[in-house]
């Protein structure tokens, strides 16, 4: 592999690596706007000019590739700094400088590079700025708004729609200083990945309808998390202010969602705001066939009630556990243990099937249909159907609950059917109905015991995605009020039966799970890589990671 020397630091890179990527390897950041690793190189913004020895002019780092040994590059010489200054001046002369009212302020490429490479004064004293009257707030589609005045014409958005989304709604119109971004006549930016253009826009020209004016970005706490919109498990950054989630942004994971995520997933957090929240445990007085009054209760009393009635239920009929694809693997594992302890007859994980959602990545894309992030993990960890006599999700939902003396549902928002009166009535026919959940859904309202638990922004855990890849996520903020995580609640319940289950952390539960469930064998919470780890599940289309391609994969017997 050829060697390249950048600012006296030499690094070996693959032939064909461009100088921006090579620079990153030695800790040299070359400023750039139009370059994006997943888009074609156009060399338009001219911000990445660097000095390449032996070349008469400055070269754009994005389009200069290291092909053979001996290339010597400098980014710290005065001529490069001069060029960067000049370019920043060009960017800013016609930019409105409306940072105080611009959503991008705080995460803006123009602000950052102005600070680092620009000049602190203007020589554009007498002329009028170029503006695009009437093009300050053009809705390109339902989710993206364009302010042409702020645009720096890097064409990332155009190339995204052409090369990644493959829909090509956006184009470059006009010429010279009057050049404009826009949708082609009769088209609108409505592809499923549309909001990604907002992420890749280095300035505030493209803003998301959802996030516009919602929050100044410097007030946001940003935590790595996972999207729960479907089974793809896109890596996201959950951005919130004091527990109020403001937006999801895709987080780079080359194995899953690359740099992208879909608009449906981005909107999925809105559910946490639109559905009323459960805040304290509630217990219904016994008797009255589900029509007795409900009273707020303490955690201790509610859990005592749950355990007492569960232990008595076995004699009166069947016990069913209805899980959901929103449970983490650890929670599902503990549920499984609880189900074992009380001798449950049925356990299943119902999920809604939605339209196919495909996220492009380097392997040709990843597609999900199930509208929950962890059906696979929940089944592997504790909800696997035990034998043929047990009732499946469908049977339980379609009236099987009648036979049950106790039905545990986790969680209250497990599926859209939790909001259907018919299903709720059918599930209510169980003699004792316990509902875990964050959402005060119709199902929660008819339950005998309601246990308010954290949603996925408030807990740690792992999900297994459609490609059987286990991915870890961490809580972004603490759960409000009396709300506890499902894991804490289950740990509490189980510890009453066996003290060894007391006060377990998600990591400890995961490690126990890994020791017990063959698919998770060899994994540990601490060493789980940031990109996740493919599980070893026989009979699945599990992907063997590239480097190990020639090794014989171990198959659990």
């Amino acid at each position: 592999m050829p060697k390249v020397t950048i600012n006296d630091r030499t690094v070996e890179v693959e032939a064909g690596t461009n100088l921006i990527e090579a620079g990153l390897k030695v800790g040299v950041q070359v400023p750039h706007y139009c370059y994006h690793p997943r888009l074609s190189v156009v060399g338009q913004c001219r911000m990445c000019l660097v000095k390449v020895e032996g070349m008469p002019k400055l070269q754009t780092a994005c389009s200069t590739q290291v092909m053979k040994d001996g290339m010597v590059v400098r980014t710290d010489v005065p001529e490069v700094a001069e060029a960067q200054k000049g370019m920043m001046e060009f960017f800013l002369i016609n930019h409105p400088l409306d940072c105080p009212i611009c959503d991008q302020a705080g995460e803006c490429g123009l602000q950052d590079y102005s600070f680092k490479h620009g000049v602190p004064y203007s020589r554009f004293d007498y002329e009028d700025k170029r503006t695009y009257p009437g093009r300050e707030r053009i809705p390109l589609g339902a989710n993206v708004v364009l302010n042409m005045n702020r645009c720096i014409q890097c064409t990332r958005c155009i190339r995204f729609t052409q090369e990644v989304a493959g829909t090509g709604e956006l184009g470059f119109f006009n010429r010279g200083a009057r050049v404009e971004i826009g949708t082609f006549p009769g088209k609108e930016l409505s592809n499923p990945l549309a909001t990604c253009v907002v992420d890749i826009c280095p300035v505030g020209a493209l803003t998301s309808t959802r996030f516009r004016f919602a929050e100044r970005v410097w007030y946001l706490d940003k935590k790595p998390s996972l999207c729960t919109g479907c089974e793809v498990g896109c890596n996201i950054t959950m951005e919130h202010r004091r527990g109020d989630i403001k937006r999801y942004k895709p987080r780079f994971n080359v194995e899953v969602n690359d740099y992208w995520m879909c608009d449906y997933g981005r909107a999925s957090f809105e559910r946490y705001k639109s559905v009323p929240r459960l805040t304290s445990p509630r217990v219904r007085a016994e008797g009255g066939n589900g029509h007795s009054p409900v009273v707020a209760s303490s955690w201790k009393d509610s859990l005592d009630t749950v355990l007492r009635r569960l232990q008595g239920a076995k004699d009166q009929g069947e016990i069913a556990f209805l899980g959901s694809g929103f449970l983490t693997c650890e929670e599902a594992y503990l549920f499984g243990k609880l189900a074992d302890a009380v001798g449950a007859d049925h356990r299943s994980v119902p999920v809604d099937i939605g339209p196919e959602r495909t996220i492009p990545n380097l392997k040709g894309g990843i597609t999900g249909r199930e509208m929950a992030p962890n059906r696979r993990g929940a089944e592997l960890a504790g909800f696997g159907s035990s034998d043929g006599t047990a009732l499946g999700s469908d049977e339980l939902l379609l009236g099987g609950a009648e036979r049950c003396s106790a039905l545990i549902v986790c969680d209250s928002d497990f599926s859209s059917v939790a909001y259907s009166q018919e299903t709720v009535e059918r599930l209510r026919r169980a003699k004792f109905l316990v509902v875990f959940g964050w959402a005060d859904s119709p199902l929660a309202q008819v339950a005998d015991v309601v246990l308010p638990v954290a949603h996925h922004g408030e807990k740690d855990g792992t999900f297994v995605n459609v490609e059987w890849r286990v991915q870890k996520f961490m809580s972004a903020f603490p759960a409000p009020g009396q709300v506890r995580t499902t894991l804490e609640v289950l740990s509490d319940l189980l510890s009453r039966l066996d003290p060894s289950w007391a006060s377990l952390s998600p990591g400890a539960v995961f490690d126990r799970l890994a020791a017990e469930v063959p698919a998770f064998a060899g994994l540990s919470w601490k060493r789980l890589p940031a990109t996740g780890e493919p599980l070893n599940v026989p009979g699945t289309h599990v992907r063997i990671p590239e480097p190990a391609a020639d090794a014989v994969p171990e198959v659990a017997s």
Partner: protein
Amino acid sequence: MAAFERVLTRNVGKPEALTLKGYRQGGGYEALAKALAMDPDAVIEEVKKSGLRGRGGAGFAAGLKWSFIPKSKDKDKPLTKYLVCNADESEPGTFKDRLLMEYDPHQLIEGCAICCWAVQAATCYIYIRGEYTKAASILEQALKDAYEGGILGDSVMGSGFKLNMYVHRGAGAYICGEETGMLESLEGKRGQPRVKPPFPAVVGAFGQPTVINNVETLCNVPHILTRGADWFKGIGTDEKNTGPKLYAISGHVERPGTYEYPIGVTFRELLEGAGGMLKGRPLKAFIPGGASAPVLKADMIDVKMDFDSVAKAGSMLGSAAVIVMDDTTCMVRSAARLAKFFNHESCGQCTPCREGTNWMELVLKRIEHGEGSERDGQLLLSICRNIGGQSLCALGDAAIGPVKSLVDRFSEEIEQHVRDRACPFPKRRFFDSN
């Protein structure tokens, strides 16, 4: 100057040359026949030996350019290659190719065919400026004749070499005269230049190796083959500036038009040949090579009009479009007008050209309208520095030519505008409304 035998324009004024028969009677297509009998590499060698340099503006050695085209390794699977003839002549002041196409289309076709044989390209596109409707229809007719006469098609002059030639009309953008912008336009995309490298010789039209040559360059080729490289080298200033050259003269001269001279004729001779200055007024300045060439002052009147001498004088020969200005010309206004042109024609993709040309026009207009400040000269130079060498294609460098030379060579005129708070020259209708 001694009488000079016209070479490129020998058929101008002979309407019969428009027909295939008439052209062949004058010795036409003999060069092609000769070339087809030669090895393609030998043709390239001959052109290299002649020292022919590109007439489009950059002055790159034509033979060398052809030799960059990769050879097909496998004889059974020949590499698809293209020749694109750049007939998008849109540099302000340039109208030499138009003459060649309108009066002697077969000369161009013959030149293209020889080039195609030399680089073994089976397809040739003549990308012609959209406004050249007459030239386009003449070329279309000539192509039709050439096909019917067996010059083009499946077997060029019976040699078995297959060659198809098309006329492709542009849609009126200066930037499509830039070679990669032209290729984009030819492919049906938005006409804007590509990042180089890769150069068109490696990845050109439709991703294939492509030669791009100017009309006048290709028109020289048949003569090199018939009369030999040594004859060609005998014309001109020195080893590096050879052959006949067309000069398009416009501006304040008595007889503007296209004139053919051996390359390296002095500007004084050129001016005299065009009947001298209009109404005998004194020469103030001249642009030797089209709008993008820096302006030269009158004291450069004896400059030899070849690539290297003009470059030494601080300008460039470019397309050899000479614009002559007399003492009634406001240099600020002329620079502003040229800046307006480049601003209008910038494709808008790269930052320095898009923003810089716009800013330069605004500043120059301000000075012209008497609202300039003392710092504007330095500001203009600084903008030029920030554009120069840093734009994606050569349009940025072209745009700074007239502006930089204005500040460098006519700074006193800028100062006068600033001091008087008005333009000291008589108004002319053209630009005042802008």
